[in-house]
């Protein structure tokens, strides 16, 4: 190995590395062959139905171990790999993309733990013969942003409690709207250490979900993202060994902020995919549909709309690629790039999907076409991993942050 191998190469976020280009092509093939034929059925199925076969096929394509280091059987493709894969899947079905994205979220605290024992126990699960899902359990009935914003922590109410008991903790309480909770092997669960007001003692635990006392609650009946299941998780004196704590007692919010900063680039990618999926349908329609003797795209107003839509999709993609590359090359994961990418891409998804539906006219409004699903799903990403209001706070905090080094 030459000396130059010990030096870092400058990052060019405009050029996807060869392994990422290969991944994009491989995932696109998976989407065309396995996801698209199932999109309508999975969208219209009862809320509690889940397509394990699709997850198995995704597992074969490596989608559950994209970010897992190679030494644990993963692909080691980082946040960039996850983001690119999720854009491709979301261009057909955002709900399917989130099954894999939520698993990354569940894996993230284990990755961030710097604890080889915890990593050796949980990361190889994703490289076995059978697909394994993970989940991230933070949201509660009375606490959403209060568990994400440090200044809010003291105001949080009814947070899942953790009581120290010898070499372990006992967790009690209820989490809500947890993607993959119904099916995950383990969860990254955030609970407040007993005696600390609000969520000021928030702590991250890795909890096997077959532990006695864990109950998987009813599945939420959602407007979109129906391919993935969001449900409650109930904990009744669930014993968790102390070695399953990530980052020590009371540092859960710090771990969660790191996790979010990693994940926001990937959610921006999902929104980019939703926008692209809607745009592609509109583009095809505007070539096929003839009015006034010419295809719609030759009408100036329509051409302007198409040009603006594709520009927005391109810009959203560049922003998530930059954010993902930043998350792959900086620790702590940067707050600014992922938050700006997500804020922008989430808005682009809504604007492009609405415009695309408008261009398709009545056909865009019919359930038999995929457009209405893109419109429904375009609103989803504004809710999870940071609302526009939360993102605005994160962005402005980064704008005015002072470098203390």
């Amino acid at each position, binding site marked *: *190995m030459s000396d*130059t*191998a*010990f*030096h*870092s190469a400058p990052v060019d976020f405009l050029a996807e590395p060869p392994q990422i280009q290969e991944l994009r092509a491989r995932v696109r093939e998976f989407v065309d062959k396995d996801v698209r034929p199932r999109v309508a059925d999975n969208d219209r199925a009862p809320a509690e139905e889940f397509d394990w076969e699709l997850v198995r096929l995704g597992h074969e394509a490596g989608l559950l171990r994209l970010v897992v*280091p190679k*030494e644990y059987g993963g692909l*080691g493709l*980082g*946040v960039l790999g996850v983001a690119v894969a999720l854009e491709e899947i979301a261009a057909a079905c955002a709900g399917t993309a989130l099954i894999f994205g939520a698993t990354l979220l569940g894996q993230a605290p284990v*990755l*961030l*733990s*710097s*604890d*080889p024992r915890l*990593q050796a126990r949980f990361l190889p699960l994703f490289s076995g013969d059978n697909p394994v899902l993970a989940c991230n359990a933070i949201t509660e009935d009375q606490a959403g942003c209060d568990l994400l914003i440090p200044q809010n922590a003291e105001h949080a109410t009814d947070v899942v409690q953790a009581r120290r008991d010898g070499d372990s903790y006992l967790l009690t309480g209820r989490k809500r709207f947890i993607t993959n909770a119904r099916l995950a092997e383990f969860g990254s669960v955030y609970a407040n250490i007993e005696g600390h007001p609000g969520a000021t003692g928030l702590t991250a635990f890795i909890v096997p979900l077959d532990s006695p006392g864990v109950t998987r609650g009813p599945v939420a009946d959602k407007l979109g993202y129906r391919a993935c299941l969001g449900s409650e998780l109930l904990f009744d004196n669930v014993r968790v060994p102390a070695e399953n704590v*990530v*980052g*020590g007692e009371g*540092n859960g919010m*710090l*771990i969660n*902020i*790191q996790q979010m900063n990693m994940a926001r680039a990937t959610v921006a990618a999902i929104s980019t995919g939703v926008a692209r999926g809607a745009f592609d349908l509109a583009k095809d329609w505007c070539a096929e549909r003839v009015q006034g003797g010419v295809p719609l795209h030759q009408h100036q107003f329509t051409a302007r709309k198409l040009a603006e839509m594709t520009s927005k999709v391109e810009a959203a993609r560049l922003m998530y690629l930059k954010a993902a590359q930043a*998350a*792959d*090359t*900086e*620790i*702590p994961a940067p707050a600014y790039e992922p938050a700006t990418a997500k804020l922008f891409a989430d808005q682009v998804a809504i604007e492009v999907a609405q415009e695309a539906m408008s261009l398709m006219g009545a056909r865009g409004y019919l359930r038999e076409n995929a457009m209405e699903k893109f419109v429904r799903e375009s609103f989803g990403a504004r809710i999870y991993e940071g609302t526009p209001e939360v993102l605005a706070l994160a962005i402005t905090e980064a704008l005015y942050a002072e470098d203390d*080094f």
Partner: protein
Amino acid sequence: MPVFESSDKAVRIFSELFTILLKDETFTQRMRESGISLHLIQVKPDVELFVTPDGVNVGAPPAPAAIRIKMSSDTAHSLWLGKLLMPVALATGKVRIKGSVAKVLEFVPLLQPAFDQYPTIAAEDGLPV
């Protein structure tokens, strides 16, 4: 009041720490296999080391290292003593790392011998442990 009274003392102690690490064949072999080099930058007082599998050099590397770690010398002291947990140090920005996160994730567990050795080294030099 900083833990280290002078830059010279901090440079000597952290050079010694990484020199001990490099005596571990497993550590250097993994560094070579993964193409890992380390540029350690500490402030208050200043320390700058460039660590490759072949040795510890004082000062900046000739070209950007694979991993660049920046922190204060007080933070480094707390970290190696085990009083400051690595995930917390990273999450709070007390330790900042640039480079491939995949390489960092691979590298951090290899540092365990340094955590084991540092309290002895620090105590021998009269630092608070």
